[in-house]
């Protein structure tokens, strides 16, 4: 990150771009979301001083900017690490033990939910359905998908990212990682597997969450 928290964000080209974005809308206030994105891209997160700048640009109050920014969970109101790790814990992933996976990750990296590791590399968060139910349990690193994980695989994945960098790792093993074999005719005739019979059911049951 090149910006300090106190640096003005909307200067020079970025200010021009902001003005240009504002012109796209009949009511410049509608430019609020795109400007928040600009701010987050530039500063790494939605800074307080940046919100004030946006308020000044749009002629609204900082409280109004905050109201909108805080509604969207993908806007970060606090500094985050180099990588954002978003673990889905909604129903489908949960059934495949996402909570165990997540707890294991936090324990391994000695960090709490919504917090950043001491070395500043990862910030962890729990998210609502990441829309990858077919690859449950899944997580995203900087919104890049990794699916069909289990607690051990997830730890190993993050260690790999820490050592070799996200882009290489994602290229090698990103998105659909280990698709399940196609269903056998018997499985098809049996219907959906009962709850708790997924690949993680052992661990999950031990943990009392089966």
């Amino acid at each position: 990150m090149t910006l300090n928290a106190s640096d003005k964000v909307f200067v020079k080209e970025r200010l021009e771009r902001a003005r240009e974005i504002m012109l796209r809308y009949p009511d410049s206030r509608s430019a609020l979301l795109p400007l928040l994105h600009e701010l987050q891209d530039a500063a790494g997160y939605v800074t307080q001083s940046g919100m004030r700048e946006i308020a000044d640009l749009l002629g609204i109050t900082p409280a109004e900017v905050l109201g909108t920014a805080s509604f969207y969970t993908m806007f970060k109101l606090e500094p985050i690490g180099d990588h954002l790790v978003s673990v889905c814990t909604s129903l489908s992933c949960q059934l495949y033990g996402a909570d165990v996976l997540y707890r294991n990750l936090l324990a391994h990296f000695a960090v709490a939910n919504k917090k950043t590791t001491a070395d500043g590399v990862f910030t962890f968060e729990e998210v609502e359905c990441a829309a990858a139910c077919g690859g449950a349990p899944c997580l995203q690193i900087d919104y890049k998908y990794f699916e069909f994980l289990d607690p051990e695989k997830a730890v190993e994945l993050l260690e790999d990212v820490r050592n070799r960098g996200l882009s290489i790792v994602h290229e090698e093993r990103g998105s659909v990682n280990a698709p399940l074999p196609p269903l056998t005719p018997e499985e098809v005739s049996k219907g959906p597997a009962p709850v708790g019979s997924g690949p993680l059911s052992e661990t999950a049951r031990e943990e009392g969450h089966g």
Partner: protein
Amino acid sequence: MPENDTLSTVPISLDGREVQASPGQLLIAAAEEAGVYIPRFCWHPRLRPVAMCRMCLVEVEGMRGLQPACYVPVKEGMEVRTQTPLVKKVQEGVLEFLLLNHPLDCPVCDRGGECPLQDHTMSFGPGESRFVEEKRHFEKPVPINNLVLLDRERCIQCARCTRFASDVAGDPLLEFASRGNDLQVTVFPDEPFSSYFSGNVVQICPVGALTSIPYRFKARPWDVTIAETTCGGCAVGCRGALSETRNRLIRFLGVDNDAVSWGWLCDKGRFAYEYVGSENRLTVPLFREETAAADAFSEVSWAEAVERIAEQIQEVKGAGGNIAAIGGARLTNEEAYSLSKFMRVVCGTNDVDCQLDDGLPADFVAGARNRAVINDFAKASVIVLAGPDLKEELPVLYLRVRDAVVNQGVPLFVIGPPQSGLTDFAKKVFDTPAAFDPVLLPIAGDVVLIVGRQSAAQDAEAQSTWALGLSEQLGERVKLLPILRRSNVHGAIDMGLSPSLLPGRVTVDDLEARERLAQVWEGEFPPDPGRDCREILDAAVEGKIDILFVVGADPLTDFPDPVMARRALERTSFVVVLDLFPSSATRFADVVLPAAGWGEVSGTVTNLEGRVQRVAAKVTAPGQAASDAQVFREIAEHLEVDFGCGTPEATLREIAQVAPAYQGVSLSRFRGKKGKEGVLVGEGRVAPRTSSPFEKDARPLGNGFRLHVGRAFWDRGTLVSECPSLSGLRPGPIVRVHPEDLAFAGITDGSSVRVLDEDPAGRLDLLRTVVADERVPLGTVSVPHNQDEPFVIRVGATVTLERID
């Protein structure tokens, strides 16, 4: 909501009963009018509906699911059911849901005992909750400004406070942040809810989430007695309910009336009751020791004070000397009338003035024809505002103008200093009346013309002749609203506290009025206008005033030339000051009489529309402080004048009898639903003054800046400085200048400057901190009045600005 203009009503069926309702009116309001109360949290009659809390769900035949009564407009033939088992079940469900996270800390909550959530839970709730899990927690309570605390755990997310802040006050500083389980009301960090109207959110919050710091933990609803009264903070005259416990005022809440305030109060009006109980109040009559050094007063009894004043009057009258009175704008109508009568019949003079040369000519104010009332704003085709910054001086009037402009779309022209909060919505802003061109106005429809003194350095005569010139040009279309600032100054003028006027909006030479007065008033007074405040003080400087009554006024602060005022008081042989607090004027007094004030005296007051409303006495005045009316009556009776006016009621009867514009004003007219709106006084018989088209004002010569002296909401006035909760809120000794002017002069924002009158004869010389403010017109230096030591203001003054290094 704006009142519904549709006169025709349609039948609807309400719980099987046919009732009449106005089409378009919201179901919840229509039902209430028909006597059916539908429970609600988020709906407030003066706020835009949002249907957020779901407490008001009812069944409407033919509409799928339950409908929020606060959002569905009435249609002819609608069949509405509010009491079915389904509705009751849903009400229980909504309440159980709202209480999931509610801390139920009623025993330590300020709202306990008067809380809509408590009441609704008792009346409509399930009685039990199935929720056994841990509730949501927040830090409690957090301040959102200097006067209001927020407890997010108690909040039920009804959005009343946020809607008030953005839609009514125009200060969108209070917002919802996050969502779902984390949804919370918040201000931006380090950006408090700095609104002049912040107390209103405490009042309308349906739970104890918002509490006011001055009232917190002071009382329970069953410990207090309450009276409805009118705010004495300024000339708007907002209605409110005043609470007392153990003879102390502890709270003032807005009361909804349609004509004036809609239930709102500004923070000054709401919290200023603290001054009434201040320890600094005057409590005993004081007499200056004849021999001792300056400032040595001794306490005397009322009887002795009255006797000695009466003796002085007799002596001065016997020797053909002069008696005069200034002030009186804080009195009730009845007190002002007593002072007016006292000066005429006991002292035989018209030398009275309730304005301190800082308002408008009294005949312009009292003689305005075709007057506007506040409710005309929203119906006008245009509003022309040539007055002071309303938000600073007449705050709730600002809310009403803002509503007309922002919510009802009435175009606004602003003439003069920019209006904080309104300028952005104005169609056009003009620096001076001369720059305004009437061809810009719409060709038809009512023009509401609001006229006040924009600056203490502005020529008030010119301002009023300009306004009359414009009115004449536009004819009947114009509805004029002359506005003055001090609490009951309009009532005081109506009671004849003006050198050229008698009670009831008539001139001193009005034969009919004098005849009628002669039947009631025993005593002679001249048929010619007396001296106004400036002339009185001028004469005093020359030693020509023998007795000067200074009634609830401080000329050393408020008269534009405090140096002259001081000399005048020094040169007057006998100065009687009646006031609530020691002031700079009491230092020059020979007699100081402790007065009873707002909250202690009952009677009536008249607001800037000419609307008479009642004020109530809720506590007894401290020590021996007494109503000014009583003082004047006692002195008169001591001089064997049959003064009458023994009680406020008797005085009001006399006013209605002798004051033409007040004929028919009686206590019975303040009762009932209609009486809630007060009584508008009639037209008087003050001849319209001669008008002239406004001349192009001479632009400042040389490099001078035009001087603008306006009031700031928070100043050193008694209302603020005697209230512990408010006195820290003043902007302080600053001057405001446009940033371009500052850049040109090479002065940096925040540095010290010297403001000097360009005219060598002028005596303005101020050291202040300069603040860059884009709202100040170019070429102007704006100085807020009464922030520290008073200074001399010359009408039409131009000043220079020097940097002090």
